[in-house]
Structure formats: structure tokens, C-alpha cells
């Protein structure tokens, strides 16, 4: 009788890194469709540019470090980084800024720390913060959604590609005619000018609760995130933490004085909140690793987003909040080491 002999592992895991990363990319598709619907095809071009440079940077670094390029590229993590960069950047942006962000993300934030699994900082957010600080002018130009203006112009693929490649528009277009302040900027400037939130909301730019266009991108991002939750690719602790960390302080402030504070709904559905809660903060490498630690991490991210939006000088605090909490992850992990089942806590351990 001939028995089949097998070595461990005997149970193959349902997900590996590659399929997990691919599902994260699929889960971003609804949000991407909403983004293109409202703000033109810039997102797709940015994704292509970011993907090219992320993959190229990854390949060069893997080769330089003497690793297998094929294995390194087949985990799709470079493409997820590229997608997050494309979502973080404005829809209209010259290609070299996207390329800078992508290369910094993959080469410095990821591979200098040892590549996938070792990076302390979220690569996409590190790359984004670098270009945000280095090129503030380009990072503050956001295309406007259709708000029923007579002169509204939906950017064609050609116009977008021309701007991405050359940084110029055809003669009949200029940035002033197609761009607007973002809802986050509008609220920040309005509250600073001592107008009430109700007065600011009259602006059609503000949409129903989170800004025209942005609220629907937020909704579709959350749908993608729910799917990731259902597929058990991400766990509930971090999204819940981020949303609660943002909702509780903004809710208390709005409850105490609704005049001078933005509503909690606005905080949740504007800017990158949903993307942060479901796709950025849940990065399994740079987030905390224990369940309790994840909750603390998420709450910290949420509160820092609130603090930066309310008191800081940057409009959306997502990238900074993520990097700041990335700093604390080793400490959080140290403090929330899970108790080993079956071990009696000795006095030595508790010291």
C-alpha cells in the first residue's frame, strides 16, 4: 500500500498576500468609478503613472538587493500603494509629482526598511506627505464637480492627459475656470471668518452632508470597505476606531455648539476619511498587530484627523494622522502584548 507523504503546512490558507492585495484593488473600483464620474479621468491617469513608477522602483530595488524580482512583484503590493497615491493626489497633477510620490513610497519608505512586511511607515502616505510638503502649489489645485454651473466643463481624457504630461491646458481652459476650493477648505475658511456651519452649507459645493462628489466617493469607498470586512481581509477594530475617534470629538463639539463646529457627518464623508478608515489605516504592516492595539491605533488616527482638520493648517489630516500613528505602533505593540494563553502572569513579567 502506497501512502501519499506530505510535509507541513497541511492546511493551505484561504488568502495569501497576492490575492489579498488583489481584492483590495477590486474593492477600490466602486470608489474609482464615482471619482471619475465627478472629477474626470485624472484618477486613472494618476494611477497609471504611479503604478509604472511603483513597479519600476520596486523592481530596481529588488534587483539591487539581490532578491527575486518576480516574487517581489507578484504580490501586487506595489499596485495597492500606487492606487492609494492616486486617490490621495488631486485629479489633475503633472506626472512628475506622482512619480516623486511613488518612488519615495516604494524606494525609501518601503525598501530601505527591508521591503514588504518591515516598513514602519505606510509607504503611500509617506510618499504623499513628501510631495505635499515639497510641492504645495500643485497639491492645492482641485478640480470642481458639476454643480449646475452654466460654464461647467467636464474634462475630457485628452485635456487631462495633456495636463498630466505637460502641466498646461489648451487655450480655452485655465485652472481658474475648472477648479474650486475643496469642501474641507471652504469649511475651514468659513469658520475662520466667523460664519456658522449652516451658512457655509448653503454653498452648492457642500453637497448634502460631505461636499458635492466627495460624499458619494466616501459612500462607495465604504461599500468597498464593507466587502473587505465581509471577506475578512481587514478586521473591524481599525475602521471602527478611526470612525469613532473622529465621530466622538466632532459629535460632542457639534452638540455643544452647532454654530461654530462642522457637523460629524461632514467629518465622516468629506476628504479621505472613508479611504483612511477602510484602506489606508488597515495596512497590515504599518498598523498595530494585537486586537486591542488596533483599536487604540484606529482611535488615535481618527482623533488626529479631527485635531488637524480643526486646529491645524492642513485641510485634510489623513496622511499626517497615519504617519503620526505609525510612529507610535512599536510602542503600542509593546504596551498591548497579548497575554499568552495558559501562562500564569508571574511577578517578573508584570514589571
Amino acid at each position, binding site marked *: 500500500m502506497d501512502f501519499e507523504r506530505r510535509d507541513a503546512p497541511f492546511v493551505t490558507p484561504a488568502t495569501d498576500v497576492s490575492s489579498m492585495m488583489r481584492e483590495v484593488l477590486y474593492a477600490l473600483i466602486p470608489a474609482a468609478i464615482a471619482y471619475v464620474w465627478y472629477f474626470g479621468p485624472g484618477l486613472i491617469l494618476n494611477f497609471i503613472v504611479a503604478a509604472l513608477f511603483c513597479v519600476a522602483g520596486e523592481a530596481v530595488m529588488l534587483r539591487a538587493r539581490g532578491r527575486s524580482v518576480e516574487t517581489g512583484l507578484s504580490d501586487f503590493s506595489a499596485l495597492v500603494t500606487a492606487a492609494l497615491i492616486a486617490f490621495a493626489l488631486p485629479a489633475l497633477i503633472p506626472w512628475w509629482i506622482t512619480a516623486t510620490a511613488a518612488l519615495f513610497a516604494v524606494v525609501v519608505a518601503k525598501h530601505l526598511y527591508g521591503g514588504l512586511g518591515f516598513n514602519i511607515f505606510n509607504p503611500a502616505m509617506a510618499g504623499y506627505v513628501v510631495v505635499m510638503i515639497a510641492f504645495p502649489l500643485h497639491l492645492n489645485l482641485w478640480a470642481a464637480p458639476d454643480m449646475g454651473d452654466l460654464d461647467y466643463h467636464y474634462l475630457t481624457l485628452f485635456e487631462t492627459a495633456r495636463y498630466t504630461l505637460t502641466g498646461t491646458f489648451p487655450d480655452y481652459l485655465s485652472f481658474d475656470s475648472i477648479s474650486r476650493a475643496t469642501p474641507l477648505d471652504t469649511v475651514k475658511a468659513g469658520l475662520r471668518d466667523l460664519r456658522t456651519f449652516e451658512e457655509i452649507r448653503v454653498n452648492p459645493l457642500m453637497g448634502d452632508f460631505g461636499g458635492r462628489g466627495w460624499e458619494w466617493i466616501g459612500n462607495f469607498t465604504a461599500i468597498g470597505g464593507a466587502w473587505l470586512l465581509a471577506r475578512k481581509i481587514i478586521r473591524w477594530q481599525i475602521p471602527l476606531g478611526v470612525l469613532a475617534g473622529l465621530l466622538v470629538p466632532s459629535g460632542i463639539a457639534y452638540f455643544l455648539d452647532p454654530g461654530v463646529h462642522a457637523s460629524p457627518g461632514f467629518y465622516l464623508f468629506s476628504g479621505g476619511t472613508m479611504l483612511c478608515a477602510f484602506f489606508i489605516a488597515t495596512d497590515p504592516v504599518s498598523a498595530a498587530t494585537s486586537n486591542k492595539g488596533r483599536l487604540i491605533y484606529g482611535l488615535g488616527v481618527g482623533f488626529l484627523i479631527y485635531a488637524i482638520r480643526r*486646529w491645524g*493648517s492642513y485641510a485634510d489630516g489623513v496622511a499626517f494622522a497615519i504617519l503620526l500613528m505609525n510612529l507610535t505602533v512599536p510602542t503600542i505593540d509593546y504596551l498591548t502584548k497579548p497575554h499568552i494563553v495558559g501562562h500564569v502572569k508571574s511577578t517578573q513579567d508584570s514589571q
Partner: protein
Amino acid sequence: MTDIILILVGTVLVNNFVLVRFLGLCPFMGVSRNLEAAFGMSLATAFVLTLSSAVSYLLHQYVLVPLNIEYLRTIAFILVIAASVQFTEIMVRRLSPLLDQVLGIFIPLIATNCAVLGVALLNVQQAKGLVQSVFFGFGAAAGFALVLVLFAAMRERVEAADVPVAFRGTAIALMTAGLMSLAFMGFSGMARP
């Protein structure tokens, strides 16, 4: 009260002495190799900074200004800081041998920490009162302690990572400090009166 809170938020987060003003980098790189040493250094620095900012304020206000010799303040402050560090060391050794065991070797290091002199000089430059000066010194020390402990924990993790050979050790630690500094730019604009 709001004044004090603004000073604390300002010194701990917005104008962190290490990551934004780039003061006190030597102990930041030197004592961050493990978490326990970093913790000890933080406590010792907090004590000395608070003490020396009070003493240097009094020295400036009641000795240098009446005698019209403010131009001597740098050298006078160095003297006061060295004296207060020595005083701390002697007191700790006499009063608490246990604390001396934990902090003993770190205390002399503080005398060469440029953040201590920086705090004393900034206090004079910004014409703060005694209470504000003390809280400014305490906030600076708390900010130093916060980033030192976080940095030490990160370095322990980076040591274990598969870092390219050329970047192992101080190189990757400096990169990490740079990225931390980048993250702390997110606090800019906060704590404006």
C-alpha cells in the same frame, strides 16, 4: 490657564525640540538604542530642563539685567546648567540610590544637551515670565521624552528588520528621524493663540 496649555501643546507637538527645532539630536541618536535607557534619559532630562529653565530665568532677571551684562547670558547659562546638572546628580545619589542606579549615567550627558541651553535662551528671547518659563522647559522635556521613547521603540523594530546592508544602524535611524520630522509637520498651525 489657556496660556499654559498652549505653551505645552506648542512645545510638545508643534515646535517639538527634537523634530522641529532640531535641538538635542545627540542624545536622541545616542540613547535611543533601547527602550529602558530612553525612558531613564527622558526622566532625567525632564527634571534638569525644568529646574534649569527656572534658575536661568532668575539669573537673567535678577543678576544679568540689573548689572547690564545681558551679553554674557550664553556663558552664564552654560555655567548654571552645568551647576544644576551637578546638583541633580549629587542630590539623586544622596537621596535615592535606586533612582541613581536608573538615571546615574544619563545625568552628566544632559550637561551637553543643546536643548537645555536652547530652552534657556528661547525663554529670554521670547520674554516669558517665571511660570511660563518653567512650563516651557517642562514642555520641551516632555516633547523630548515623547519622541525619544517612540524612536527607541521604532529602532528596536528596525534593528530586527531586513534593512539593506548600506543602511543598517545610524543611516536608517537618521532616515527614520527624518520621516518622524515629516510626520510632525502635520501639527503645524496648531496652538496659535
